[in-house]
Every structure is written in C-alpha cells, then in structure tokens.
C-alpha cells in the first residue's frame, strides 16, 4: 500500500428526484489497497459504484478515480478501470481465448501485446487444456478466476469486484483471493462489494453504508473492536438495525 490516492470521493451526493441515494459520501482508497464497500440491499452501493465507474453523473461533490474527474473525464476513467460482477461477464458461447481477445481488443491492446499477455496468463493459471474450451463448459471456479483475469487483463489502475466469490467452494475462493493478492502486488487497487462478511474479512479496509450514508469505516479489526462484535456479520447487523 502506498500513500497515493486512487479514488477520492468528497461530499458525493446523488439524488433521484426527491430520493437521496448517496448522502454526502466521503472516502479515499489508496493505491494497492483492498477496499470493501458494504451495505444492505438498497443502501446505495450500486448507485455509488456506477458513479465511480463513470456510468452516471454525481449530483454534487467531487469524485476522482485513477486521477480523473467523474464529471469531465468519464471516458478516461473507463479506460483505467476493470470490472467484474457475480453474473459473469464472459460470453458462454465463446472460448476462453476468444473472450480474452475480445475484451483486450475493446481496451485497444495491440495483437502482439494480447498474445504475449495471454501466453503469460495461460502459464500462470495453468489453463493449457482450458484455453480453447467454451466458457459454458468450464467449472464455476474457473469461470470466476478467468473473469477476474479478464477484468485486469488491460492492467487497470483499479478493479471493481461485485460479490466476486459468491457461491464458490472454500478452496476455489482462496485461489481467487490469491489472484487478487497477486494483482494488488502488481499495483492494482481492488474495490469489492459484497453481502458476505467472510469475504469482507479479506479487505484491508471497509466502509459500511446504511440508507445512503457511510456509517462506519475502518479495518475489519477496528470495526469489530469498536462495535464489540465477534465477527463482521454482527458489526453489520448492529449498524443496520440502528438505522
């Protein structure tokens, strides 16, 4: 982790008519940090992520992602982030290789670079046997690992993960987090949203949103201390019930 801020949010407000989805959010995410963004259904997580990914405008406040402004430089933001959601972003009817070539192509990587990085990836994941298989024929664990590799294939500065390991077995989950650690090692910042607190425990720092506001922020240990809870689930429930 370094001191450089990759995401800076100051007094972010997003309104839909009279409804305030994001109520004065402020936080920073540092380079190579794993930042967990938690909140109940409807707490406003999705709205905030859309703004951070350059998909929608804030109503007011300052938002900088990867050094770019969320009002004026949305296209530059999009070029410098990666995204992976629980509903896989890979095409079932394309092979692993075709999927990667397609996504890399979108980000304007040269053929030579794609080939080079693809070969690296195949070596790293050990997917010589899988690379020409259709995605639909892969086990769930592999789909998730490959989807993550695709999301960071263009070496974004920050990658957004939406409930990345929901439903996978405990071993695959750990292999997945190994990949995340590796990405962090290479300087990528990781922004994770999840409902599942065991996943939250892997984050360096967490924020918990309740009704559009950030109610708590800190390391998992700090939060457990502060709310006198034995695990993050209790922290979360205490916070949400208070509201």
């Amino acid at each position, binding site marked *: 982790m370094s001191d450089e801020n990759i995401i800076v949010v100051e007094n972010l407000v997003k309104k839909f008519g009279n409804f305030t989805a994001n109520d004065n959010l402020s936080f920073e995410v540092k380079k190579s940090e794993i930042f967990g963004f938690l*909140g*109940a*259904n*409807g*707490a406003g997580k999705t709205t905030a992520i859309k703004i951070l990914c350059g998909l929608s405008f804030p109503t007011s406040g300052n938002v900088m992602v990867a050094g770019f402004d969320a009002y004026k430089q949305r296209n530059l933001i999009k070029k410098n982030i990666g995204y992976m959601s629980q509903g896989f972003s890979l095409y079932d009817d394309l092979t692993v290789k075709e999927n990667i070539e397609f996504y890399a192509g979108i980000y304007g990587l040269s053929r030579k670079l794609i080939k080079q990085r693809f070969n690296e990836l195949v070596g790293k994941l050990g997917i010589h046997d899988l690379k020409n298989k259709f995605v639909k024929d892969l*086990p*769930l664990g592999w789909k998730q690992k490959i989807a993550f590799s695709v999301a960071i294939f263009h070496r974004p500065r920050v990658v957004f993960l939406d*409930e990345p390991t*929901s*439903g*996978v*077995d*405990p*071993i*695959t989950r*750990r292999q997945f*987090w*190994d990949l995340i*650690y*590796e990405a*962090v*090692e290479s300087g990528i910042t990781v922004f994770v949203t999840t*409902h*599942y*607190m*065991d996943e*939250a*425990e*892997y984050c360096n720092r967490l924020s918990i949103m309740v009704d559009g506001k950030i109610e708590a922020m800190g*390391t*998992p*240990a700090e939060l457990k201390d502060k709310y006198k809870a034995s*695990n993050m*689930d209790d922290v*979360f*429930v205490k916070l*949400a*019930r208070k509201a």
Partner: protein
Amino acid sequence: MNEIEIHNLYKSYGPTKALDNLSLSVEKNGFYGLIGPDGAGKSSLMRIITSLLLPDSGSVIVGGLDPVKDYKKLRLKLGYMPGKFSLYQDLSVEENLKFFARVFGTTIEENYHLIKPVYSQIEPFKNRRAGKLSGGMKQKLALSCALVHKPEILILDEPTTGVDAVSRREFWDMLAEIRKSGITILVSTPYMEEAVLCDKISLMFDGKVVDSGSPDDITSGFKNNLFIIKSANVPLLLNVLRGMEGLKSVNSFGQTIHVVADSSETGKPEIEEFLQKNNVSGCSVEQSPAGIEDCFIDHILTNTTT
C-alpha cells in the same frame, strides 16, 4: 420414522455426475442444512426430494411417500422455495399469496397464524408489485407463499443467496420460529457460517456428502491441530508458511491464516520458530478449535487427493 430418508442416490446429467452415492436422513421436525458450494448437487437433491426430478437409482422416501410413484400426494405435503426468485413479478404481494393459497385449495385467513411471523413483515406493502420489492422482502414473500398451504415439509433452496446480512439473519430467525409449529425444514446454503444455525447438516461437495451430523459433531471430528495466525500482511505470510514442512494446509481466512498441522509434532513453538527464521515479525499464533469451513476445506483436500 424419518421424514426424509435417502439411500445410495445417483443422478447424472449426461457425463456429469450430479449426485454420487448420496445418503442422508432428516428426522421429523428437524432443521437440516445442506452446506456446499454451487455445483455440489444441492439443487438436484432438493428437486428429487420434491419429485421434480427423477433419480437414476437409489431409494428416496419423503414423508413416508415415494416421490416417483406418489408424487401427487407428496406434492400436497411439501412447501418448496426454488433457488431462483420465482414469484410473479407483475402481481402484487397479496395477489401472489392469494394465488398460491388458492392453488392449494386454502385461503390466507385459514393459515394466517402460520405465515404471520413472515408475512406480517411485508403486509404493509401488500399492494406493491413483487418485482418492486427489495431482495430481503422478496425472500419473505416467497417463504410466505411456500408456507401458506401449511406444508409438513419445507424445502428451501438457497433462500439467503444474494440477500444482505440483516435480511439474512431475519430470515434464519423466521425459520426457527416456523419450525416451532412442527414443520420439518430442509434448507441449503453455500455459506459455511450459516451452518451453525441448523440442528444437523450435511457438507456436500461434488455430488457427495462429505460429512454429516450436528455442527458440533462435525467440528469435533476435526482431529488435527489448528493454529490461527494474525498478521498485517496476509499475502506475504501465506507465501512464507507454504514453505514450511509438517503442515497439512495453509489457508487464508480474511486477515488471519489458518494452519493445520500434519501431526502433534508441529505445534505453536515450531511455527513461531519458523516465522522467526524467515524474519517475519508482528504475528500472533494461537491454537484454536476448528470451524465448519476448516472442516469443509479439510474434507475437500482429502477427497480430491485420494
């Protein structure tokens, strides 16, 4: 007589084995959990129990009935909540509930006492379309619909997947409440931490039950010594510990690492010594009893290596 009794059950989809020689029994008024990741065979098992799928071989008795032959009688006894949210999104909360009551030949009023712990929470929104409900409320509506005909056996396929922590906890509380009326509950979840909320569980992986019993039975069946190491730099420590001999497994658990010793020869002193030798400081090593997830990982590792 057990409410659900399954012996040597097999089910394949083409070359894929979904259920592989699976046996389990759920006693009457039991609160039974199927714990396992996606693809472990939980849904297939539940669909066979609910008579929606035919088994390839093996014996299945549910509520004293054979789901293959007596499916008509059995279906009257069952309340089933499939994994996917399956209510009519274009109908209101009340219309959905009324529909399912009517289909089973009953009314909301008749069994209101039964659904009250669940339905009362969403009743204020009874005129809202089901499609406009939040995830937690949808689950409550689906549960109300599965309960409205007073089933004897309630089968819930991953009811808490994709639901936030608060709603999830409320949901489990409601299940405990419903159980008091004598209903047998079989519920599945991919989340290990939810296992302890059930009386008895089966850990499922690759179509097999790798362990069964009460959560305590399962954790006390973990024979190796387990150590929890806290560290500020988990990735680094993981790499270091993976180089240590005498360890069965090294796994990250959030900001901690769980280390399972091969034998009693590897203990806290040996681990601390090894860390010191590798210039790692600032970690604490504590011996600890195993959790469900430790047991699960252990079973997968032994299952896949043998």
